[in-house]
């Protein structure tokens, strides 16, 4: 039987699934770079076939990293309403901007053409591809690896006094606490439900009522977040954390041949997606 309170199960961000696959063992910096390149390429490709290639590629990555595809799907699930709303808006209001191709409907400001339908379908698929890709990245890379690699990739910016370390520290902390707060929230929902609270009753249009229903969760969560932050400060200070201090890292990454190979493959895919004249 499904459980009304199991939130932490649905939050895949910040979760790491250690399967020890080839993808897991790649240099995280290379993984991150290839990810950025591929996402850019997917975002700019507007053909059906190109996006089909992208979808197949992202599914292949799930297989290669030995992560069950259900993880990717559970990441897509919460995004479905947004995808639908976005699709509707594009279908109804963006026809004027993409007026090429055959005209199907022309009624007042609503203009639906084969091009605008292409836009709708391609953006929905694109959305799913990007969620899949980022799921593979986050599920196969621990948060520490991720922030270390962001820090390492951004380190040239130190020269222009960009606060690279601070930013990566902030990212690490916030990502690190996502699952923690999901657990806290689950606990809080259960605790308040035990006092007779109910959530998500009444229609979605009764925004005020539904917001009020959330107070018994949000307020305690804020309290918990603040006290956790205080604990964290103490813990960091007692381990001699000094803002702005120079520090070395425990883990040093060294990219090997296979890592560069993957980067090259990623780049090739990106070039393919960007410049190959897909027939449709």
């Amino acid at each position, binding site marked *: 039987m499904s*459980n009304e*309170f199991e939130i932490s199960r649905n939050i895949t961000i910040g979760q790491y699934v250690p399967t020890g696959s080839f993808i897991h063992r790649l240099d995280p910096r290379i993984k991150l770079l290839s990810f950025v390149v591929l996402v850019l390429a997917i975002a700019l490709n507007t053909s059906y076939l190109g996006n089909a290639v992208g979808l197949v590629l992202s599914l292949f990555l799930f297989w290669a990293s030995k992560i069950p595809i259900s993880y990717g799907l559970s990441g897509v699930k919460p995004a479905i309403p947004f995808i639908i709303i976005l699709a509707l808006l594009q279908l109804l209001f963006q026809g004027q901007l993409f007026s090429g191709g055959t005209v199907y409907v022309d009624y007042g400001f609503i203009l639906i053409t084969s091009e605008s339908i292409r836009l709708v379908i391609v953006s929905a698929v694109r959305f799913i591809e990007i969620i899949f890709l980022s799921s593979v990245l986050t599920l196969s890379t621990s948060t520490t690896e991720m922030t270390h690699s962001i820090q390492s990739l951004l380190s040239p910016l130190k020269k222009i006094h960009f606060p690279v370390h601070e930013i990566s520290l902030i990212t690490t902390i916030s990502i690190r606490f996502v699952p923690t707060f999901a657990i806290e929230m689950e606990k809080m929902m259960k*605790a308040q439900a*035990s*006092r*007779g609270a109910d959530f998500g009753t009444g229609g979605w249009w009764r925004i005020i009522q539904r917001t009020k229903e959330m107070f*018994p969760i949000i307020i*305690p969560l804020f*309290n918990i977040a603040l006290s956790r932050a205080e604990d964290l400060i103490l813990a960091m200070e007692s381990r001699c954390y000094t803002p702005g201090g120079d520090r070395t890292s425990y883990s040093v990454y060294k990219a090997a041949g296979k890592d560069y190979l993957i980067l090259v493959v990623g780049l090739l895919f990106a070039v393919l997606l960007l410049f190959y004249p897909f027939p449709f």
Partner: protein
Amino acid sequence: MPARPIIEIENLSHTYMKGTPMEHVALKGTNLYVEEGECIAIIGHTGSGKSTLIQHFNGLMRPESGKVIIDGEDLSQKKVNLKTLRQKVGLVFQNPEDQIFEKIIGDDIAYGPFKLGLPLKEVRERVKWAMEVVGLDFEEMKDRQTFALSGGQKRKVALAGILALKPKILVLDEPTAGLDPKSRKELLGKIKVLNKEEKLTVVFVSHNMEEVAMLADRVYVMADGTDVLSGTPKEIFTDKEKLQRHQIGTPETVKILYRLSDLGYKVKTDAFSIHEAAEEIMKVLAGTKEVSNYVK
């Protein structure tokens, strides 16, 4: 006709994150029953499934397999009125003070009764009753700010928030964890009063064996997601072999008495209430005096 137990758990199992690589079996084939008016302690190491088990009592978790029957109502049925169930079974979570969200004590305690849709007068009476049961003066405390309270007082407010629902069964997850000794003692006293005088059925999870020895009528020991041992505190704490097998701690009194008996003194090792234990130790002391007098 013998009375039916108010809580009946039969062969209950639960697996977290089923169907994912993070799958984790929390309960497997647990059995438990609680008679009306009893005070039951559940002990066991972290991860033995205690918290998962008690969340089944008020329908926060529904039985995956096995049976949960609360006051005659079978929770494995699809149609269960969760509201009335949660009113009947008051569940106090670990660190319940976290759940206080109103600015003023009275308002926070009144949240549950208001959610039950009770009229204002009734709500007020319940808040008053609940505050007095936990030892907070209604007139003096009802309009105080919640954030300015001490840890012990906050926990009392949280407990009152549950009691204001007037539950028949009170379930507490480590009620005294993180409290100072004085508040701890006070809270235990309140729980005893609730059980003995207000006739609430009490189930509590604890790591503190003194508490268990002091409060519980019966004890369940959980290990690896199942109930491995149950009985009165006397039966549990005197079964040396099983205590060791399941690595259960014992109250200090039991430890001292075992120590004395190991050293060859004749003591009753099942006399673990502080009073009885003190008497046993006195006897030993008196005995040694006699011996030493004799030697002289």
